[in-house]
């Protein structure tokens, strides 16, 4: 066997383990899906009337739910960060990572399994979310190509956040700490972006932050694709941000993995 086939086999083993974990203990995944679903219902039914009125031209004449769902899609991916960080942290604090590090196992395999599992979960969660969204009146105007682009962006975004979450899970001292350290990614960054309302409706300081942070181009491009508006260069900006986050998370995670529990 060559190094590459061994590496692929190890990564497959680890992905299989991660998926088995998810299937055997589905509550974490259910929780991960439930949060954005509740957000969707809350913002659409309870706050949506007022927010929708205030949106004006930004909604392009469509109901608020069409504006909201792309943002909730991003929240769904971000919501998985806690799950990933928790799983990675359990391996770290439980000694699994040190065990693997003393074995002749391809170095990146364990984390690749976690990231792969995280992406699979994100795709499942976003699919469920879109199903619920359709039930509550979401009417996307995306072509097949648009949907493929949406899939690409969701996948890229979830790979990026998974590597970041893996790093956060590795450096956290406890499971609770691991989950806590992802909360800004799960909630703060989505709220301080164009997830629920356009960035230019925010107060000046926040508006600048919202306009320049990575979540905004991701939401904006998802929204443009799903509502059939022109995407422009926003999608490239979104993918560039995903690449940067993935790279930072990846390097950070590798360093933390090599350090182990000490």
């Amino acid at each position, binding site marked *: 066997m060559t190094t590459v086939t061994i590496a692929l086999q190890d990564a497959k083993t680890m992905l299989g383990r991660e998926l*088995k974990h998810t299937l055997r*203990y589905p509550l974490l995944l259910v929780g991960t899906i439930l949060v954005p679903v509740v957000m969707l219902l809350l913002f659409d039914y309870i706050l949506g009337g007022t927010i929708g009125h205030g949106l004006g031209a930004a909604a392009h004449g469509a109901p608020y739910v069409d504006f909201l769902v792309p943002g909730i899609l991003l929240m769904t991916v971000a919501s998985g960060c806690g799950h990933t960080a928790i799983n990675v942290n359990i391996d770290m604090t*439980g000694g*699994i990572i040190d065990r693997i590090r*003393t074995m*002749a196992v391809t170095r990146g395999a364990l984390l690749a399994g976690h990231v792969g599992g995280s992406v699979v979960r994100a795709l499942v969660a976003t699919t469920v979310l879109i199903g619920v969204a359709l039930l509550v009146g979401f009417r996307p105007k995306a072509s097949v190509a648009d949907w493929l682009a949406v899939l690409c962006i969701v996948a890229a975004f979830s790979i990026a956040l998974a590597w970041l979450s893996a790093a956060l899970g590795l450096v956290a001292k406890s499971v609770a700490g691991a989950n806590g350290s992802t909360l800004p990614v799960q909630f703060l960054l989505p709220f301080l972006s164009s997830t629920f309302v356009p960035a230019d409706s925010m107060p000046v300081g926040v508006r600048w932050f919202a306009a320049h942070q990575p979540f905004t181009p991701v939401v904006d491009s998802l929204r443009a694709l799903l509502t059939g508006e022109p995407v422009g260069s926003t999608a490239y900006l979104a993918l560039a941000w995903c690449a940067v986050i993935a790279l930072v998370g990846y390097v950070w995670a590798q360093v933390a993995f090599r350090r182990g529990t000490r």
Partner: protein
Amino acid sequence: MHALRPQKGLDIDLGSRLQHVSVNTLIKNATRNAVTVNGLRKAYRDKVVLDGVDLSIGEGEVFGLLGPNGAGKTTIVGILSTLIPADAGTISVLGNDLRTEAGTVRSLIGVTGQFSAVDNLLTGEENLFLMGRLHHLPATERRARTSQLLERFDLIEAAKRTPATYSGGMTRRLDIAMTLMGRPRLIFLDEPTAGLDPRSRHTMWQLIRDLAADGVTILLTTQYLEEADQLADRIGVLDRGRIVAEGTPDQLKRRIPGAHILLRFADAAALDGAARVLPEGSRDDDELVLRVPNEGGIRSLRDVLARLGDGVAVEDLSIHTPDLDDVFFALTGNPTREQS
């Protein structure tokens, strides 16, 4: 081959390479050391954990690394098992330089850390399967080896349950079974009985003896003196990052005098009588006792009794053999006190 490759130079090259390999093999066989450590140092910031450790462990040997908490035992295991980089020193594990051939070392060793590292979300059997996959065993061998190990470690009934339902001893056994999946030639057991009840501890001891009987080299750390005495062929006493003594349990015990027969008498006259026939004894007139050095064993006891005869009335007799606690105390001045 000659017909295909007529160049002479190549022949010579091949020949010398073959020779080179066989010399290497000879050296490896001749040294027969599973682990050789010279001048190992490790510090975390300004806290010195290992201060020049030298160690050699022969193949097939059970080496006990004995020391109190904080002596540096886990750090040594961490370094030898490629988890932690050393600051200084040369380390060879099964003939491989740890610095340059860490990957090869990993394929030869098995590590059971101080805390059980099992996957609590998988069943016992799945944990073993996982190890088998990571060792790239073919499916048939993976299954065969898993059922062997489950049987050997008395885990058949627990195979389909997750370790969350296991006792501490069972989790430990699964942990070691997982370590054995890849047939390691050198096993590190870092405090394998820590936190186990006495019965599980004895089960674990027997498992370790069985492993040793298979010819596997074992580096065992413990803070239980009895455990090292029971299991190890040789013991290294680690204190504040240094090996302060090394040898077989008996050699270590011999290093401190103190094996003696303690005779207690009712009055000074009896003590006088005994001291006359046992001049090598040291008397304590206040306590009315006589300490007679004793090589150990029934023969020397019988000899002392014979020399005492019927004439001297002994009120009480007790035999004192030094245990490793005494050794540890004599060597370090602090028996089991935690070092910080």
